[in-house]
């Protein structure tokens, strides 16, 4: 039986500059943040990032890792926009492919099903078609002759998603309310990685939740990385909610070069255990100062 366990560094070692990389989750929820942090520490560059975007996109843009972002939105949920993504777009530092979030879903689905495109009304009449002149329409071959958008497959070189539990062979379990589109990110990708709060024995998966929570089959995974707190500071329900205080610290620091340099030194220029330790220390400082938030 294949044992697909690997380290974060081994995962990053399988990625290459210039790749198209899909990242699971949605907004500031269940993002594979430990993998993103590992990419920040690597010499990877020139990535095309495909994401229901949150701070994954912001952090990668801030570190200059991104050539292009494929997105329908980039948000921190409780904060409407990500400041680093905003800055990168406004400075013209990243190329963009912006599509309706349903078109995005169909792009992943088409890639998963090895289809060139899937038809949809979404996009018709909007500037999605003006801003993406490569998008085409298709005419129904039936009597209705409807003209629809042909959403092209969003084929990925690699994808990373973060799950609550996985076994060593790469079956993944999602215990939160929404599986998002993680299954399709994996289905759309050539190299497929699952990071997880905890690796458990296979029989513990079904014992730990309803059958419907076992939504990532090992047919869809090549590598498994155990990385507790691996979605922090985004939400990973039921393990933890979004760390709102930390997210505010991230967003505030992004607005000031000195504050951002300090944030980077403390939280990003360290390995994953170092990050988790720094986060605990920062939370302790906030508690000691009576909840007031410093930079």
């Amino acid at each position, binding site marked *: 039986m294949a044992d697909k366990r690997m380290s974060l560094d081994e995962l990053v070692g399988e990625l290459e500059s210039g790749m198209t990389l899909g990242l699971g989750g949605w907004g500031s929820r269940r993002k594979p943040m430990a993998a993103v942090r590992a990419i920040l520490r690597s010499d990877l560059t020139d990535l095309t990032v495909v994401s229901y975007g949150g701070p994954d996109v912001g952090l990668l843009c801030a570190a200059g890792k991104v050539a292009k972002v494929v997105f329908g939105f980039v948000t921190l949920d409780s904060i409407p926009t990500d400041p680093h993504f905003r800055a990168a777009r406004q400075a013209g530092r990243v190329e963009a492919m912006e599509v309706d979030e349903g078109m995005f879903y169909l792009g992943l689905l088409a890639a998963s099903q090895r289809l060139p495109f899937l038809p949809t009304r979404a996009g018709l*009449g909007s500037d*999605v078609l003006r801003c993406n002149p490569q998008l085409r329409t298709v005419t129904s071959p039936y009597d209705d002759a409807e003209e629809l958008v042909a959403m092209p497959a969003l084929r990925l070189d690699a994808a990373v998603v973060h799950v609550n539990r996985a076994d060593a062979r790469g079956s993944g379990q999602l215990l939160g309310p929404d599986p998002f589109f993680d299954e399709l990110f994996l289905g759309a990708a050539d190299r497929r990685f699952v990071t997880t709060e905890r690796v458990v024995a296979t029989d513990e998966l079904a014992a730990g939740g309803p059958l419907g929570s076992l939504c990532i089959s090992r047919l869809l995974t090549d590598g498994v990385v155990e990385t507790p707190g691996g979605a922090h500071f985004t939400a990973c329900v039921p393990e933890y909610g979004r760390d709102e205080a930390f997210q505010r610290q991230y967003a505030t620091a992004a607005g000031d070069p000195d504050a951002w340099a300090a944030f980077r030194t403390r939280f990003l220029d360290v390995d994953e255990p170092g990050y988790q330790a720094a986060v605990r220390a920062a939370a302790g400082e906030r508690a000691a100062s009576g909840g007031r938030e410093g930079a």
Partner: protein
Amino acid sequence: MSDGAPTRAEYCAVACAEVFRGDGEVMASAFGTAPALGARLARLTFAPDLVLTDGDAALVDGAPPLGAPPESLVLESHMPYRRVFDVVWSGRRNLIMMASQIDRTGNQNISAIGDWARPRAQLIGVRGAPGNTVHHPTSYWVPNHSPRSFVEQVDVVSGVGYARAAAAGPSATRFHEIRAVISNLGVFDFATPDRVMRLASVHPGVTVDDVVAATGFELVVPDDVPETRLPTVEELDLLRTVLDPRGLRDREVPV
């Protein structure tokens, strides 16, 4: 608790509720405080079959107050995002979105201000607006009516208006309906021969001239503009004692 004349925020909530009048079993999605209150008011009064969401991944029974703790909700169905698209594309949804910009023919922008290729201000992104508008009734809530939000032509067409849908052809117009635009000043619709925005009512305390001055394009103004309807006693009581006792609505639209 229900003493006192209706506030502007309460007129806005009731105007949002009216968007759902006549709806049967459709999923009500509502962004912003007044729309969230409007959907709940409609559900508790004249649109009892309306289906509300918990704002996460479930449909809920009843109409929970704003900020109700999750453990107090009665869930009736699982509605993760992937399934939301099934609902959107089936048309069984009625939506009030917000708009950073809206224009004369009902185009909405939440993507970017300025040139899309290199925006002056990057906003959240088009989200589901392109798809929503060509699949099911969509309305907009603009709590800060000004010439900067009501513009001649939006910078990036996210939600599709009437002229753009017509130009795109029958597949775009087939299920397209911009039902209403509600702002802190009044209610607007597109009940004109050429489907451009019309002033449907002004909220009490607002004049037609106020609205015209705050609008960055030529609005169709009928000879006789009614006032937005009064909240009923029941509606005021629901708003003040059940749905929003903490008065979040007054933060969005100050008294």
